[in-house]
């Protein structure tokens, strides 16, 4: 976020001994955006953005406030429709898509400002993530018996596994509106995980958290990536976190692509340093 965090998170020792993540090999492309431009009225939010996300990697999108990071996620999951450009996901090119269609193809996300269903319990919130997988129609559900009950229980078991994974057993039946911020973020991650996503988009999963909560969240993200092999794209302001956990980083500034590469490459990039430190053009 600031120059200080950028530098603090870049001890020279780390670049000599690369993290295990950096040694992993990603070849298969999961998602590719090409020449994306998006504007609202006259305001240009994104200009000619191209990058790709490969299977099983953790891909960070960074940049100053207003750089277009959230807009980029909104484009990927179909909430915004770019005027120009194509998105290729799992080999299929598309220019427009509704959010629920994106969900069907395995894209899940969390939000910068938590978007949970405040009137429902933690359990119900995470259960909503299973909705797409539930096949019985409402007539069966009206009976709550036989196949409908069996289906309900199957999904309950999946959801309970997620609750165990995220260590939120104690708040299972609490309405999420009453939970503290950090736990709400965790429940939101749980809801996204319940969708069994192939691509998980996380919008500032650690904003407003204290160090301990951040460490927990990092652990969850790495575990999800490791255990389930989920591809993750995340927006984060904490450079220490970004440099630690991501495999490759995209840097946006004023809606343009500034740099794209491994954490080390990005850190060494002069343009990125200028954007973060500010530079006197002489």
């Amino acid at each position: 976020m600031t120059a200080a965090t950028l530098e603090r998170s870049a001890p020279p020792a780390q670049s000599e001994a690369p993290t295990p993540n950096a040694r992993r090999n990603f070849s298969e492309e999961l998602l590719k955006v090409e020449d994306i431009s998006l504007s609202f009225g006259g305001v240009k939010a994104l200009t000619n953005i191209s990058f790709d996300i490969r299977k099983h990697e953790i891909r960070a999108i960074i940049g100053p406030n207003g750089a277009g990071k959230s807009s980029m996620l909104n484009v990927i999951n179909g909430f915004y429709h770019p005027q120009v450009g194509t998105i290729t996901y799992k080999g299929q090119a598309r220019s427009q898509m509704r959010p629920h269609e994106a969900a069907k193809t395995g894209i899940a996300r969390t939000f910068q400002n938590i978007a949970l269903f405040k009137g429902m319990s933690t359990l119900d919130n995470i259960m909503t993530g299973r909705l797409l997988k539930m096949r019985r129609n409402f007539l069966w559900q009206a009976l709550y018996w036989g196949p409908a009950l069996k289906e309900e229980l199957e999904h309950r078991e999946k959801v309970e596994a997620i609750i165990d994974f995220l260590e939120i057993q104690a708040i299972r039946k609490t309405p999420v509106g009453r939970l503290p911020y950090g736990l709400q973020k965790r429940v939101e991650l749980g809801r996204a995980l319940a969708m069994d996503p192939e691509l998980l988009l996380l919008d500032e999963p650690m904003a407003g958290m204290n160090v301990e909560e951040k460490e927990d969240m990092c652990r969850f993200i790495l575990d999800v990536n490791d255990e389930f092999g989920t591809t993750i794209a995340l927006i984060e302001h904490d450079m220490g976190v970004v440099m630690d956990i991501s495999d490759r980083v995209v840097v946006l500034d004023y809606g343009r692509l500034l740099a794209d590469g491994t954490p080390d490459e990005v850190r060494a990039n002069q343009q990125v340093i200028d954007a973060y430190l500010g530079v006197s053009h002489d």
Partner: protein
Amino acid sequence: MLYREAGQFKTNYVADQAIFPIRQDRIGMAIVLLFAWVIIPAFGTDYFLEIIMINFLFFSLAAIGLNILTGYTGLISLGTGGFMAVGAVASYKLAVIFPDLNIILVFLLSGLIAAAVGIVFGLPSLRIKGFYLAVATLAAQFFLDWLFLRFDWFTNSSTAIEGVPKTLFGFLVTGPDASPFAKYYVALGFVTVFALIAKNLVRSAIGRAWMAIRDMDIAAEIIGIRPLPTKLLAFAISAFYSGVAGSLMLFLFYDSAEPDLFDINLSFKVLFMVIIGGLGSILGSFMGAAFIVMIPILLTLAPDLLGLPISSDLAKHLEFMIFGALIIFFLIVEPNGLARLWQITKEKLRLWPFPY
């Protein structure tokens, strides 16, 4: 001491997903059902069964229907009266055109017709939200009011629609000559079954989808809920309940009614039941219906009991004032209604008599 769940452990998810997971609630429900099915009909007078219980039962059904739409899906509707009118008119026409049709089928088909009308008037909900939608549902109310008055095909060229006498298992259950006893059981049967169905719906996937739309429609869409079909299903089911309630109202309560009985004031009455009972609660729908049904009855009885006779005009005006004041009072004291008060009482009971 009495209401405590300590020691009741669930060892599987079936038990935890049960409709009443706590033993005391199950016992309570059994007692309520025993009263409704055995004790009330055994000891209740005709007046009690008809004026209070049947009245309460069909309003409960209408309130459950509106609660599905407004309380669970978050779509405000002022068109309940219109959908009830569709149900009433449809059941009258069906009963006249097909004299051999079973009365239960008449009611169910009327509900389905109301559901179809509900879907049509629910279509704008894709693009319209909140207050704008409330006004749009008024369009349904006024259009349907006009339709049934204007085209006398609906009323078979008479001024009123009538509850056609029908038998069920050999008993006369509808029409002016049927006994309150028989009518009561028909109403109770419908309400018991459809309350159970409503409860099942709101605690399964479709109910969660509705609540997701209510709490945050954008997030709901992003986790894969398609807004239009979900909202339309809520409209359809809500209108189905209202339609069946309208049929019951005509066949079991009024016997003969002019279509303008189902005007906008009826819509408001059901809305008040839902607010006072509790938005997003099936139990609340019953509580609200009981409350609103009892007020006018108490208002006509109370002055005589107190020895203060008041004119029927004044009683009518007082009823309006008391309704209005109660709505405001409830919204201020407990926006979540009687159902929430009941829940708070239960939470207190869990700790009683040692609250610390």
